[in-house]
């Protein structure tokens, strides 16, 4: 009887395990993600999980700013995952107040006194550089 009860528990466990193993593959579209990711290079995978637009912007910032520059990000919510990713990928450039560069993402026609256009990726992704 006791063994039967333990085996019933095992069956319930396996059913729940299988459900929560399989469900996210479809509900969160993990199958498509895995399929897409498996075809990508390491760089492509970073772009995929970060979002291609943001990752492209980060790459351009990294290529154009001199090493160890200071910057501020405009247009990305502070302390959001995107903001943390920007900080991570841009290091050793560091985020500071009154920085040398302003990284504008998803905001058109942003202006701040003392800064001029340094690099334009498109209308809402560009870099301003301090001139004073």
């Amino acid at each position: 009887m006791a063994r039967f009860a333990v085996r019933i528990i095992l069956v319930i466990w396996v059913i729940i395990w299988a459900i929560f193993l399989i469900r996210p593959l479809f509900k969160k579209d993990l199958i498509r993600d895995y399929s897409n990711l498996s075809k990508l290079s390491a760089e492509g995978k970073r772009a995929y999980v970060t979002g291609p637009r943001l990752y492209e912007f980060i790459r351009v910032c990294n290529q154009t700013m001199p090493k160890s520059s200071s910057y501020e990000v405009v247009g990305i919510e502070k302390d959001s995952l995107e903001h943390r990713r920007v900080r991570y990928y841009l290091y050793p450039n560091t985020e500071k107040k009154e920085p040398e560069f302003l990284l504008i993402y998803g905001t058109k026609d942003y202006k701040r006194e003392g800064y001029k256009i340094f690099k334009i990726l498109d209308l809402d992704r560009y870099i301003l550089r301090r001139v004073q």
Partner: protein
Amino acid sequence: METLFLILFWIIFTLGVGYSVLKLLFFRAWPFFVGEALALSYGIGIATISIQMALMSICGIKFSALSTVLLFLPLILAALFLGLPARLRENRHQAGGLHRKSVLQHPPRDAAKMTFLEKFFVGIISFEVIYAFFRTLIKPMESYDSIAMYAFKSKIFYLGRMVPKDFFKSFADFVPHIEYPLLIPLAEAQFYTFFGSLNDHLVKIIFPLYYVALLAIAYSICRRSLNRRAALFFTFLLATIPQVTDFATNGYADIPFAFYCSASFFYLYLWLKDKRRAVLALSFIFSVFAIWTKAEGLLFTLINAAVVSICMVKEKRVSLIGAVYALVSFLAVIAYVLGWRAIGFAVNSDFAGAHVPLTSKIITGFKRIPAIFYEYQIQFFGPKKWNIIWILFIAGFIVGFKRIFSKELFPVTMAMLLVLSGYSMVYMLSSAPQGFGWHLSTSGSRLFLHFVPIAVLWLALMFKELKLEI
């Protein structure tokens, strides 16, 4: 090919360092299974190397694979030197039948063929392990804490080839939770150093390896009390809890932490049964590594000290080594708190609301109890994250109520009760800037993850007490 070689080199070196420490502790008698020894070596190796890297930074020595290897060479040679005569001695003892009966000794090797059910458990565990590696390596670092707390710090350490001298001051505004312990960031920096480049993709391999190590020690500890089939059953339960598998792949510190605090308690439990000093030393070492992984390790260290003290009171027999363990654990916690205070930090900035009077904190804490219990019931009855592990735990508590304080179960029951009370206290005192509700909802499920292996051990022992079979 070169990538594979570098990963293998890192793993072998890590295992070598951990194995050496283990060998030096247990040079008189070796009580471990092969898988268990490898699992322990992995955890000890990573933690020891990360502590060495922190010391190197304090001394102004830059990280390099060569300096790391050279600095550990004496340790490895000492282990080899001591290990060889120990092996000869062990053989002589075995030949003369001098080994005393011990719970720590290997159970007789089960040569019987695996039954269908055992094959099923092994198959599912293997599937989960392979799937964990797949899920880990298919994506680069991407989740919040893995990037913000750990990968970011490790990038700073790797690019600077050391923990910068002014790290805790000049990076405080730039790195979130700079006061968090450094084991994981240094382990990642360690991997980059051996790998020779900042590969934030392959570095994630650290985490599923901890998952495998956790399963190995859970099996070993269960196997010492149960037959092979039952031990595999409980390892299978642990391996297939969705929350455990999810956190084995996402780059968070919670599975490594679960490994260290579980190992610390498991070997303390073995000491309570067997009273071999080296096992207690191992438990203390794992407590220190748990503190070095996450600040919650302080709580587990205190709980272990309390469990030893309570067991001594219950048995009405004071053991000197047990008292020393409790005292040293307590001192380790004090030393950590004072050390952190000396560099200007609270242990965790979520509890840094020192300006709030204590009475007010206590009153607020009591008002939070309903919300805390509500969160606990969400966890207990949430199959999406936990399957039915907590329901089984509650059922075991009810069905086996008369046995929960039996000699075998008493330390584990005490540990579980103390952990639950301790974490409830943590929430009662939390002053996270985002609010108590945010803190509870974002960390509750992770805190349960830390002690789920201990809960599995509790279930396994209750299974034995109730004379159940699978």
